[in-house]
Structure formats: C-alpha cells, structure tokens
C-alpha cells in the first residue's frame, strides 16, 4: 500500500501532501502569534503608561540581521539541492544552524541582562509580554534547529534513496524557517522600537 502524492504534486491541487500540510500548519501558527500580538495591543491600549526603549535596540537589530541572513542561507540550501550540489547544500544548511545559534546566544545575553537587573516577567506587563512572545519565538527557533540538525545528520541519508523527497523536505523546512523569521520581523519593531 502506498499513499499517493507524498512526493509528486496532485494535478488538481498542484501540491504534494507535505507542502499543503506545512502551509496549513503555518496558518495555525499565524493564529497563535496573531492572538499574542492582539494581546499586546489590548494590554498596551489599556495601559496608563507604557515603557519606551527599555530593550537593547542594537542587540535586537543585530539579531534581525542574523535571522534574515539565515533565511537567505536556508533558501540557498534548498536551491543547491535543486541544482544537485550536495556539498553546497551541506554548507548552507550548516551556516543556517550556526546563524540560529548566534541568534540564541544573543538572546541569552539579552535575557541574562534583564534577569541580572531583577527585571523578570513578573516585573511589568511589558516585560511579561516581551518574555512570552520572544520566548515562544525562541522555542520555534530551537524547533527549527532540531529539524535542521536532523537533516544534517541521520535525515541526510534520504538524499541517496529519494532525492526529490529530501529536496521537498528541505523546502518545507525553509517555509517554516521563513515564517519564524517573519514573526521576528514583526516582533522587533513592535517590542524594541515602538
């Protein structure tokens, strides 16, 4: 028994199963983060005062650059597969992981500074929403890194047995990764700049 359209696209929908699946998953993620952004708006509109420039803008800006770069390397990792360049794929995928780890390191310094100053999530509502949103975003980064490490490690074997499916998997990982990147592109101005 074989499940159809695991690799090839179904003609009438134009999609393979996995691609439709990842898009649906991202739709639900939009609702998850959408609810948190709505929460942010509601809390801020209802607040008598709202702190400005409480966060480290240079660190945040650096992280934005890092994450956007990682999105680029992610695309390259997929494009290399499409061009059948295995070595380049490994390089770009590893680079993506390195950049993600850099992002997390940066975040570690940021969080550390807040906690050192005694400004945990319970300090103010602003910090509460800051820690919740960036924390959840960070979990998404960690999830992405785990998936990428899998494709660098044991998951890479599929390239030999079913290259097309492996390429698809990298593409879907990329779609997820761009979404995580996009969330940060919203988070940065909303939390750091506005």
């Amino acid at each position, binding site marked *: *028994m074989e499940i159809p359209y695991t690799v090839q696209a179904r003609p009438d929908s134009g999609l393979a*199963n996995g691609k439709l*699946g990842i898009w649906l998953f991202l739709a639900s993620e939009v*609702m998850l983060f959408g609810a948190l952004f709505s929460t942010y708006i509601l809390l801020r509109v209802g607040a008598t005062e709202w702190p400005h420039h409480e966060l480290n803008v240079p660190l945040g800006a650096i992280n934005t650059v890092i994450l956007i770069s990682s999105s680029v390397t992610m695309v390259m990792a997929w494009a290399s597969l499409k061009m059948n360049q295995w070595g380049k794929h490994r390089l770009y995928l590893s680079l993506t992981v390195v950049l993600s780890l850099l992002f997390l390191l940066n975040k570690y310094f940021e969080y550390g500074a807040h906690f050192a100053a005694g400004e945990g999530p*319970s300090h103010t509502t602003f910090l509460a929403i800051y820690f919740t949103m960036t924390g959840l975003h960070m979990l998404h980064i960690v999830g992405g890194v785990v998936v990428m490490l899998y494709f660098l490690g044991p998951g890479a074997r599929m390239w030999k047995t079913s290259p097309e499916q492996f390429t698809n998997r990298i593409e879907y990982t990329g779609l997820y990764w761009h979404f995580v990147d996009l969330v940060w592109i919203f988070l940065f101005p909303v939390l750091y700049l506005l």
Partner: protein
Amino acid sequence: MDNVGTIGVDHGHAHDHAHDHAHEELSFLRKYVFSLDHKVIGIQYAVTGLTFLLFGFTLMMLMRFQLAYPGRPIPVVGNWFGAASAPGGIMLPEFYNTLGAMHGTIMVFLGVVPLAVGGFGNFVMPLQIGAPDMAFPKLNMMSYWVYFLGGATMVGSFFVPGGAAMSGWTSYAPLSVIAQPGQLGQTLWLVGMVFLITSSLLGSVNFIVTIVQLRAPGLTYMRLPFFVWAQFVTSFLLLLAFPPLEAAGILQLMDRVAGTSFFLPTGLVVSNRVVTTMTGVAAGSVASGGGNPLLWQHLFWFLAHPEVYVLILPALGIVGEIVANNTRKPLWGYRALVYSVVFLGFMSFIVWAHHMFMTGMGTTMSAFFQTTTMIISIPSVVILTALLLSLWGASIRFTTPMLFALAFMPMFGIGGLTGLPLGLAPSDIHLHDTYYVIGHFHYVVAPGTIFALFGGIYYWFPKATGRKMNDLLGRIHFWGSFVCINLVFMPMFIQGLGGMNRRMYDGGMQYAHNAGLLKWNLVIGVAAWALGIFQVPFIVNFFGSLKWGALVDKNPWEATTLEWSAPSPPGHGNFLTEPVVYRGPYEYSVPGSAKDFTPQFEAEHA
C-alpha cells in the same frame, strides 16, 4: 504486504533489520497500540472518547446527588473521595466546583470532540473518499498519543493535593489565576489543554490534507458525502480557532507560574486582600497588575464558540449519512447543505462575544455580535430543514441508527431555538448564568450531538467489526435514553426562566425565588441516574456484539458511499481494488434502476 511505516521514513535505525522483519508480521504493539492504520487509530480515539464520556457523566451523577439531596452523604461511593473532598461522604463545595469544571472539560475536550472528529473522522472519512490511509499516518498516531497524554494529565490532576481545576471549564480569569494557590490543579489543567490543542492541530492538518489530496478518481468536491464536508469544515475550525486558546493557555500559565499579570488588573482586591503573585522569585509581593480579565474571555471564546460547531458539525454529517440511507432517498438539497456548512464555519469565527454580553463591553460591540449571531442561525436552520425535508414522502427504515438520527433533529432544534434568546443581549441579561443556559447547550450537545454519535456507532459498527449490533438492546438504549435525557434537561428551562443560577453548590437553596424550583432538582437527579442505567444495554451491546453480533457482508445497510465497497472490517490499505467514483453520494431509488440504491463505486449499468 508493504506497510505505511515505510512511507516517508528513512530514519535509519540501528535495528533496521528488525524493522524490516516486523513489516511482514506486525507485532501486537504495532498493530493495536502504536498503530499507523487510520482505522485502528480511529477506534482508539472512539473507545477512549467513550470512556471519557462515561467518566464525565459519572462526575455529573455525583453532582446531581448533591443538588437533589444537599448535605446528605453520597451513598455507597461517598467514602471513596477522602476527607479532603467529601468528609463523611458529604461533598464539600470545593469538590463540587472541581466536579463541575472537570465535567465540562472532559465532556467537551476529551469525550465528544475526540469521538466525533478523532474517532468517526479518522475511521470513516478516509474510507468515504477512497483513500488507502490518512496522508500522514505517523502524525495521526502522534495526534492520538498526545491526546492520550492530555487526558492522562487531566485525570492525574484529580490526585494532586488540592484536587483538579475548579474554575469552571471556561477557566475565567482572574479567579482561575488566583485559585488553588501553590497547588497544581489549575496549572495541570492548562498543561493538559496545551496537549489537547497540539493533538487537534496535528489531526486537523492531517484531515484537510487527506481530503484535498487523497480523494479517489472521480470523487469531485460536490460528490463528497456530506459527512466528509462536515469533517472538512470542522478541521478548519480546529486548525484556526484552537491556537488562540493555546496562546491564552500560555499566558495564564505565565500568570500562575512566572508571576505575570496578564489577566490581573492593577490593585485587584479579592476577599479584602490585595492580590499577590503566587510563585516565582517575588512570591507574596503585590502583583504588577496592568492586566485585563476580559482578555481571557475574548481569547477563550474565540476558540470556544467555533468549538461549539466542532461539536455539532460532525454530528450533522453523521445524521446526514444515516438519514439518506434509511429514507432511501437522496439528501434533500445537498448543495444547500454544503454551502451552509461552509458558511457556518466561516461565521462561527465572528460570533464569540455573544458569550460576553454581561461583561459591559458596550452596546456597539453587543449590536455587532447580536447581528452575527442571528445570521449564523440561518445556515443552521437551512441544514436542519434540509434534513427534515429529506424525510418527506420517504418509506423510512426505522433501524437503530435511524432512531437516534430522528431524535437528533427535534432535540437539536430545541437546543438551537432556545439559543436565540441568549444571542440577543436584552433577553440574555435575564437568562445569563441560569440553568436556562445549561439546558440550551446541553440540548445541542447531549441529546443532539451525543445521540448522533450513538447513531453513528450503530451505523458503522458493522463496517468496523464485520458484525451488527443487537437491535433489541439498541432500542432499549434509545428509548430509555431519549425519555430520561429530556427529563434531565427540560426542567432546566423551567428553573432557568425562574431565575435559578447555575454553579450553585446547594442548588440555590438560600434564595427565596428558587423555593418553588427546587423540587425539579430531584426529578433531574433521578432522571440522570436512570439515564446512567440505560447506558448499560449499550455497553453490553458494544462488547457483546464483538463476539455474538450477526455477521454481515460489506454493505449491510445497502448504502451508496465508498466505505461500503471495502470489506467489513477493511484490511490494511482499505480497498481490494482501487476505488473509482462514478456519481454523487446519495443515488437512492433512482427511477428505472433495478435496486433502490446505486452506489458511487458502481460503473454505469452495473
């Protein structure tokens, strides 16, 4: 035979050989416990869901004793709950609250939805669209086991100090945030919900992909059985409505564990004390405040109203299948039904604040949500009317599933119509938080949805097991349940219209205006326990028929949809030959045809 386990799997374990070997003869564990087969997973979901339904109902039978006989020790089982819950067998108010909160949670999230979507959806839908399995069998298995973890968390929370959550199934802030300080009940409820939401996310992605991608050749969207359409829309609701509750759950978890104040306003005073943070570094210090309790309600009802349709749509789908089959006629207005279901799904996202008329959110908001609420009643009425019209002029087969389907229609009708006064702010102000509300939504979910689910079990049991359930026991189950369940919920309208509030530990004895209404508590109690007794024939029938039920061939009901072309029970991979669809789903009594049903899977002039 090849195995789904190989599809898309290249993890390359060290014990690859053992794996390959297992494909030929699946071990018991892989075949019945960690199965990838949608039919096994569907049955796992269904049986677990039914067990939770019974469990949740048991909690209610206990509560009903307290309401019928306030302050009297619970007979027989009263001593099982310990001194912390029921000293001397007499239920404490806190224990009553716990039972109430967990009854709602268990019935909705662990009982009805897993049975209706996880059970029926998983088992029937792929068969009805001619698919060999779900699109992602591993995700499917994971979905069940994450649900199981969520259920285990909820059940486990009964046994932690302080007991399970007691802030209602809605967990309204700020009470839920400050309830049970330092105890785990509410926190575990939130963790359990996160599991359940994750499970339903995995399930809904799988359902949608399966319906879009794996339909058999010839099965266009407008040839889909109505049940599949209902599952399709339901999956979208689960996919898009649940994440905001996940967000809300995370926020409340932060409030309880990290000491934030998302739902605690500044200077909140409860019982003459300023509310303090409960945990974390600054335990005991005044909460930072600045939060908004209404935020919880918005996020909660943004899920929980679509959730109502998650509860009802699969039931409508099941009733549609049973009605078409037992009237031997096409469903009346198939296209109207489909469009109504889609419209209903869409509208269900913009009616949530009709649960919040009493929060003082303002007349403009109320006006908007009243309007959308009235609009959403239109497709519901279209669907119910189409089902009723399908009966017109039919020579109805009064089979056991059909009895349940027939009862569903007026019961769901009562539930729906009594909802209208609740959807309008002026009348809702009077009825809000009374037993009327309880009567209303239970008519939708209990004699409505749960009856449809029972009907579905009787209807598809032969497909799942190859044996029919006993008709006599089925009829006893049906008539007993039908009478009792109305005796349970109809008096609630009387009590509610008289102003009796819900969630009262003593049934509201201390209020003078309730004096004439208290007698109904006894009626409801007796009816509820009798209802419990009438589930015994069902349980006996369910397990007995596995062994002694009459053997059936592949199409015992002479039905037209694809699942009846597969063997009963279908083997791994479902169909013996690749199914091809030639026509719409309900070609019954086609003029000029030799028999009164023309299945989707039979070629022209077959």
